[in-house]
């Protein structure tokens, strides 16, 4: 194995290590804010792995949508609810062992199922030039997948309306007749 062929393995190894370590750190950190920040690191690392798989557009939307928008929403809600001040509930020892065993069994099952079903697919993932470029993706999206793309706008609209209705303070609105009730500072009390 020459040095040139080792480089992709090195890159993948480092990325995989960071991804798994940040996922574990997310699980074991006591503070919800720390968990969210480790998850951002994990999402960014997986985004770079997408880049090595020839998906630059998806990699950048992963960073923009997941690590950007979704995690900002998470951090916003954690701080709105005062999540950093919650005393962390220490799980029971039997609980930890049980969850660990179940997770390990699940992982084993996934890997076994894969190897039994497909053997080892060691064929390298070679990229054709222009594969996964925004142009190619856009052509596919707006020709073959135009209807699903339009339907996603409906999903986003329903999520928008649902989020507004769920967080609306209904009691206050009926009593005072206000159309817009300011968000209460819940953690002040």
């Amino acid at each position, binding site marked *: 194995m020459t040095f040139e062929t080792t480089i992709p393995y090195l890159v993948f190894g480092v990325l995989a290590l960071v991804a*798994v370590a940040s996922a574990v750190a997310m699980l074991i950190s006591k503070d919800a804010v720390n968990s969210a920040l480790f998850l951002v690191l994990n999402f960014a690392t997986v985004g770079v792995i997408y880049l090595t798989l020839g998906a630059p557009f998806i990699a950048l939307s992963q960073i923009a949508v997941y690590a950007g928008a979704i995690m900002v929403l998470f951090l916003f809600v954690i701080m709105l609810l005062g999540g950093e001040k919650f005393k962390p509930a220490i799980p029971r020892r039997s609980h930890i062992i049980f*969850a660990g065993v179940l997770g390990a069994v699940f992982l084993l099952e996934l890997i076994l199922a894969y190897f039994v079903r497909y053997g080892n697919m060691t064929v390298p993932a070679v990229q*054709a030039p222009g594969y996964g470029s925004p142009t*190619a993706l856009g052509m596919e999206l707006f020709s073959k997948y135009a209807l699903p793309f339009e339907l996603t706008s409906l999903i986003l609209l329903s*999520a928008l309306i649902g*989020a507004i209705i769920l967080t609306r303070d209904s009691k206050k609105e009926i009593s005072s007749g206000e159309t817009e009730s300011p968000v209460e500072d819940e953690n002040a009390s």
Partner: protein
Amino acid sequence: MVPVDYYLILSAIIFSLGVIGVLLRSNALVVFMSLELMLNAANLVLITYAAYYRVLSGQLIVFFVMIVAAAEVAVGLALLVAIFRAKKSVDVDQMSSLKG
């Protein structure tokens, strides 16, 4: 290039960590983050097979998964805020009743 196996096993490991997070943590916000971790692991499989078979459909499914995940996070966090208002807690052990 790195074989496809490696990516799939990495994805399996991340997915299992997400499962452990859902089982272990009692903070509903962290449970929710573990769900996102699992979605992300599934996306990694889709991207890997898209690269393996050199078809773009896999990448587009990931694009749609991202959109649905964003919608899911918005509604889920709104539910958490509503639950916090009612119960003053986001501990999943406290959420044992369906009504109020």
